């Protein structure tokens, strides 16, 4: 009962948040001085041409009217038409979303692997120089944001030791047999591992840039929880039963220590997705974030709107999922 109530309440607040985002974005971008329609037409266009086209895009109506028309369309799955690309916003945005999702999930996986390995190693070798070294590395990794890590990685692995690609999603000259936009997934499904390798060599550096700060956060929190768990009686008991130290950490302490980290990963994942905007730009990766920056620079109002709303849906969706998982896993909340 309490769970259902939590669920319902969270759904309502999420809906309110999304509406708030839609309203704010809609009004903010319409305060823009320059006329996007005038920018579309060739220099010789008459005032009449501009007026006709403005009416086609519905930009001649008052802002609240425009919002109602737009919101009505959105409810029917129509997000309008991009002014610069002249295609439906929904199709454009959904076409780019898989690229961003693949990058984000790859980055998340790398962050969990690196952070988890650092925490386990730090716990196994606690109170040694290795632990001190890991702590310092994590401190630095955490202090510097993904944008700077991206630049450092470009310099080191793109220029100094050029082993990875530093721009684009896939080598343009390759013939792509894909029917979906999930290139990485599809290349594996089709057993075209040559393409998988090419995709990965493009995605590795941007994903790593996104992963480094998150890996440090995961590593710090997991090690903290592990340390607390290692002092508990049942762990000592396992040790006296003759389990090796590594086995004690892995099979006794870890399952109990992992919960707070899992919750944190959910919340931090939204920050990681937000980071893709600038990282995609930095690596010329053809995802949603790169498209968003182009849309802003070109003042493509319907497209900006669609992208920001989609990002907001992803953000709130992930947060909702985390909260619900937490509520379902936490007995105190479940029986609250």
């Amino acid at each position: 009962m309490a769970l259902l109530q939590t669920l319902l309440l969270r759904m309502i607040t999420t809906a309110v948040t999304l509406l708030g985002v839609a309203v704010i974005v809609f009004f903010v971008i319409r305060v823009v001085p320059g006329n996007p329609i005038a920018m579309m037409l060739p220099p010789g266009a008459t005032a009449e041409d501009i007026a006709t086209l403005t009416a086609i895009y519905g930009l001649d109506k008052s802002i609240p009217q425009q919002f109602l028309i737009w919101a009505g369309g959105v409810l029917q799955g129509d997000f309008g038409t991009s002014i610069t690309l002249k295609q439906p916003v929904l199709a454009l945005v959904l076409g780019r979303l898989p690229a961003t999702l693949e990058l984000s999930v790859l980055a998340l996986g790398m962050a969990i692997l690196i952070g988890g390995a650092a925490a386990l190693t730090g716990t196994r070798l606690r109170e040694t120089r290795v632990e001190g070294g890991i702590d310092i590395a994590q401190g630095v990794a955490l202090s510097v944001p993904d944008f700077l890590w991206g630049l450092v990685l470009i310099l080191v692995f793109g220029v100094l030791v050029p082993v990875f690609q530093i721009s684009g999603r896939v080598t343009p000259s390759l013939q792509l047999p894909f029917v979906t936009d999930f290139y990485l997934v599809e290349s594996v499904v089709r057993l075209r591992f040559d393409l998988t390798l090419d995709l990965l060599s493009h995605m590795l550096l941007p994903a790593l840039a996104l992963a480094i700060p998150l890996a440090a956060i995961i590593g710090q929190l997991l090690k903290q929880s592990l340390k607390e768990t290692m002092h508990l009686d049942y762990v000592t008991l396992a040790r006296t039963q003759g389990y090796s130290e590594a086995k004690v950490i892995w099979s006794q302490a870890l399952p109990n220590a992992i919960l707070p980290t899992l919750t944190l990963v959910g919340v931090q994942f939204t920050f990681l997705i937000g980071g893709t905007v600038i990282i995609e730009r930095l690596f010329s990766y053809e995802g949603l974030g790169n498209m968003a920056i182009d849309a802003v620079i070109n003042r493509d109002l319907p497209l900006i709107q669609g992208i920001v709303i989609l990002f907001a849906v992803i953000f709130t969706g992930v947060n909702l999922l985390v909260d619900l998982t937490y509520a379902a896993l936490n007995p105190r909340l479940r029986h609250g």
Partner: protein
Amino acid sequence: MAEGRFQVRRRAGVRLWLSAAWLILLVIVALFAPYIAPKDPLEQDLFSGRLPPFWVHGADASFVLGTDSLGRDVLSRIIFGTRIALGVAVVSASVTCIIGAALGLLAGFYRGWVDVLVSRFIDIWMAFPPVLFSILLIAVIGPGLFSIILAIVVIDWTRFARVIRAEAMAQGAMDYVASARVAGRGRFGILLREILPNVLPIIVVLLTLEMGIAVIVEAILSFVNLSISTDDPTWGGMISEGRTSIHQAWWVLVFPLITLFLTVLSFSQLGEGLKDRFDPVLR
């Protein structure tokens, strides 16, 4: 164990002082930029474009860290860029801090409808990717230093509001607040004289961290060409140019990147170091 703790403390101290030293150096460089910089940061010299730094073959020793594609001195541009970076950091972080902390204090201490309103806005703000939000805002209000500062304030006030709200709530439930109320102090007086001094350490920590964030935001906006004009020396603008000519002239990217990296790291380490100092549990 006790010795280990001592070592950690000492290392934290070294970190704190190193960060402070780098930031003080930056302040001096910013203040005396015209006297320190060897060249005019805007002066173009198309005959000495893309000269490497002094130790590389083919360099002109008067351009210590080399030149960019328009023949402008990299070192002088970094030095003058310090002014913009620190200026934006100090002004935007301070304004963000005042607005965010005030809203957080009001929401956390008075609760009621103020809290509902502030919390709802925080929720909405959290649903925006911050980088996209800032680029959007700059596109709306137009590029320029003032716009960058405004964008940082508009986006980041929630960082302060969230933390200070929780802290004010926790402080408000403590005994000393109740006794101040019994002693007949007004609500606002309690907020100002009792709660504020107790959350001030956290505010200082957040302010320090925010300055590092502001430096990065300014660099990111310059990087996507939405900061001030590309002529003006900004670290982000230099990095943007360096990214495009990375295979011809790595020094245009490397030196501003190192400067930016150390600066962001220093603000962050200083903030974390202060947090450890202020935290009574750790002390």
